[in-house]
């Protein structure tokens, strides 16, 4: 019965959370209010921290974690499948439609407007990541000292990575190599 409920709750989240991982948060908070024995608000804060420091989409991490605390490994799988199932079905239907109407003028026009917007959204996401990873805006607004605008160590890592990314002979290096180097350097210098 618990498993069925778990599936239903995450299916609902997957069906109504539009706009990516963070959009699942309000649903998870709502869930913890209705099922306090499943997870507490404190658990959610922990999950956010864990999600940010492990690979994978945040929504999936949340579902897996809650599923595990409620019903072990099987609970994990059930919650995650529940979360993913609605979008799987919806996207397959849209993909089918898109394939059929790819050459349709209206679809082309729609994507003509969407592509630059998504590029803009990615730029906005880059700003968010910079705020968390490199910039120290709190410190800056307190002191108004331009030197407090960014964490010097993080800024150095970020700029060094950018330079390496744009060096021609290094183009073949996989991004994961830089990520691993970042982890090692982080442990060494902080």
């Amino acid at each position: 019965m618990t498993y069925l409920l778990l599936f239903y709750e995450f299916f609902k989240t997957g069906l109504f959370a539009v706009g990516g991982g963070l959009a699942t948060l309000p649903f998870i908070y709502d869930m913890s209010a209705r099922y306090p024995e499943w997870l507490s608000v404190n658990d959610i804060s922990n999950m956010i921290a864990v999600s940010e420091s492990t690979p994978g989409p945040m929504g999936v991490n949340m579902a897996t974690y809650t599923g595990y605390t409620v019903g072990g490994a099987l609970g994990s799988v059930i919650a995650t499948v529940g979360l993913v199932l609605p979008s799987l079905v919806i996207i397959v239907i849209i993909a089918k439609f898109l394939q059929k109407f790819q050459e349709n003028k209206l679809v082309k026009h729609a994507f003509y407007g969407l592509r630059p917007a998504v590029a803009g959204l990615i730029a906005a996401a880059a700003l968010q990541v910079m705020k968390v990873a490199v910039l120290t805006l709190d410190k800056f607004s307190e002191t108004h000292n331009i030197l407090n605008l960014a964490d010097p160590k993080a800024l150095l890592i970020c700029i060094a990575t950018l330079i390496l990314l744009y060096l021609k002979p290094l183009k073949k290096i996989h991004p994961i190599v830089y990520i691993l180097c970042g982890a090692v350097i982080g442990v060494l210098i902080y």
Partner: protein
Amino acid sequence: MRKLLEMFITFAKVGVMTFGGGYAMLPILEREVVSNKKWATSEELLNYFAVGQCTPGIIAVNTATFIGYKNKGVPGAVAATAGVIFPSLIIIMLIAAFLQNFAEIEFVQHAFAGVRAVVAALIIQAVVKFFKSGVKDVTGFVIFILAFVLAGLLGISSVYVVIGALIVGLIAGRLGRCKE
């Protein structure tokens, strides 16, 4: 069957290498799916991201489903989706079982301070790439700036930005301003 397995493994790789949610996945996805496997072009990837933004579910999962379906139909969609969630499923289960205070370990915090700075650089590079493939004219540039300001500076939900851009695209098309 082999292609399905290949798809599962490739997306599992993408899942393992994505730190920090949907957008952080873009640089890795670009490398694995566009450059290496050629399962989609970078323009198509932008299309999928746009649709993934305004449909329910996690963007990373939606994008995987799209690419899987495009190449191998429904089984491909399932294989790609299963692949992208598989690593987190295992990793989070292990953390939930053994490491309750994982995120508070000092070593982990330091490592991730470094990882985040690198991910910031990778996403900046992705912005440049997708700007090049997504912005083709002045109208596109205006949409790009508007989307950035609305979502990045004013905190408007990306769902509305996407819907707005769709309408602008249709109107621009009507006025004959689309470059094919």
